């Protein structure tokens, strides 16, 4: 859609190349990433705005329609989402812990929808499980394997879907031998889910690796030492029509190359623990990596 972009750019005042809407999901990491994307793309000469939509159900259709042009995404999650969308609920999984295969599968699902999946980088934000510090200390837990060995009965705070997802309850039972007695459907990484673990109502909570509020609830992550989780590497997904430009791809590519999981954790921490604003955090990050235009 370069041509159309040029036309757009021509019409736009200020000599910009066009308007790009970056979508973000409702959680911190997505917001920061969206801000970073926004900065980079605007440095590349586009006019950008960020729109926050609660979840994928809302922004993905908007992305397909071109109401949103770019979204920071996670390879496996998006793949499964599109998989379900195409094949109905509970289809044969396409995502795995292998990032390459996952991205290939994702591309296959995305392209027919007019979505262009840009290359994935090293940074990942996978699902992860957390328990209270005391619980971990009492039972000497560092990894999920430790938990499996401890034979503790576990009530898991997660989404209802955990029941069937291979990476969740079935995986925990099969791969780690953890005795999951039940699922408390308080959502993935929601405050109430973490609170339930803190209160002792539940013993473990499903959250993400980059969750920076765990400290607030006195929780620690258990390491996924047997690679149960899918490869949820961060990658930009764009609407092929409205944001398929090489320039955008190139600009985002530079970022993807530099971004690491540690960076994500740090970014989240700055927002969720230090309570800085996402846009400030984004700017500071880009400057520190020398990606920002002066």
């Amino acid at each position: 859609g370069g041509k159309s972009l040029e036309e757009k750019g021509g019409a736009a005042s200020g000599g910009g190349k066009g308007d790009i809407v970056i979508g973000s999901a409702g959680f911190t990491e997505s917001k920061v990433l969206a801000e970073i994307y926004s900065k980079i793309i605007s440095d590349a000469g586009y006019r950008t705005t960020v729109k926050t939509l609660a979840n994928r159900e809302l922004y993905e259709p908007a992305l397909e329609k071109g109401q949103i042009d770019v979204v920071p995404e996670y390879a496996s999650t998006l793949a499964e989402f599109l998989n379900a969308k195409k094949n109905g609920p509970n289809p044969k999984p396409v995502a795995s812990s292998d990032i390459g295969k996952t991205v290939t599968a994702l591309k296959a699902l995305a392209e027919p929808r007019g979505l262009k999946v840009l290359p994935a980088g090293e940074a990942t934000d996978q699902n992860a499980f957390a328990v209270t510090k005391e619980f971990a200390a009492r039972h000497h837990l560092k990894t999920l394997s430790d938990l499996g060995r401890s034979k503790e009965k576990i009530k898991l705070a997660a989404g209802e879907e955990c029941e069937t997802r291979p990476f969740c309850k079935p995986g925990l039972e099969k791969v780690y031998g953890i005795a999951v007695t039940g699922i408390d459907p308080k959502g993935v990484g929601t405050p109430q889910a973490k609170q339930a673990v803190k209160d002792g109502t539940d013993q473990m909570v499903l959250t993400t690796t980059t969750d920076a509020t765990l400290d607030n609830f006195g929780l620690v992550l258990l390491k996924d030492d047997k690679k149960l989780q899918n490869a949820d590497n961060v990658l930009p997904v764009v609407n092929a029509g409205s944001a398929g430009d090489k320039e955008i791809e190139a600009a985002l590519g530079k970022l993807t190359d530099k971004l690491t999981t540690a960076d994500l954790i740090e970014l989240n921490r700055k927002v969720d623990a230090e309570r800085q604003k996402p846009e400030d955090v984004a700017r500071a990050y880009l400057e520190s990596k020398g990606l920002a235009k002066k």
Partner: protein
Amino acid sequence: MSARSCLEANDWICGEYVRTRGQELLDATVQHVGITLVSVVIGLLIAFPLALVARRWRAAAGPVLGLTTILYTVPSLAMFALLTPVFGVSAAVVVTGLVLYSLTVLVRNILAGLESVPREVREAARGMGYGPVKLLFGVELPLALPALTAGLRIATVSTVAMTTIGAVVGYGGLGNLISSGMEGFFKAEVLTASVLCVLLAVVADVLLIGLQRLLTPWTRAQARARSRARRERRAAGRTAKKAVA
């Protein structure tokens, strides 16, 4: 240093938060007020004819009320998911959703208000040659105002609260802050935005009470006369005192 710690310590109340995010709070509040106002006004404009239809044709009453009920039960996520393709990602999505939600209360209360107009008053008006429209606006509506405003108050306050669910498409006013605060467990953000929300609701409610007072002077004729008499007495007392002095 201490201010910093209040943000980092994640206190419920944090001055630093208000200081650093003043603009953000203001923007959110403005957006909140705007969306609420537009939604309530449009809601009223739609609810009114619906109520009239329900009153005029008794057979329509069931379907109209049923429809507003169904609309109210559509989960907000689903509602917005359905509306976004139509309106794009915009405030219109939120406004439309809120309008549809507000109909339940408004239609019902307008209907109840209109039904409560005393018979002989209605009859006198019709006997004088009030046409249906004049009758409605000149007689029934003013007399239905108390019930109507009761509904409007509930609808407005509810809409103030429900505007926050607009956060799912990024147009939730203070709701954007509440949901992001909730997500990041940012207590000060959640509390400040919630308090602002409550304040907005209270202010809107008080404004509506004021509006109703203004529009229904007859209900307070007695009280007004009393206070005027009191004022005059006081004034008289003052002049008397002056005269003595």
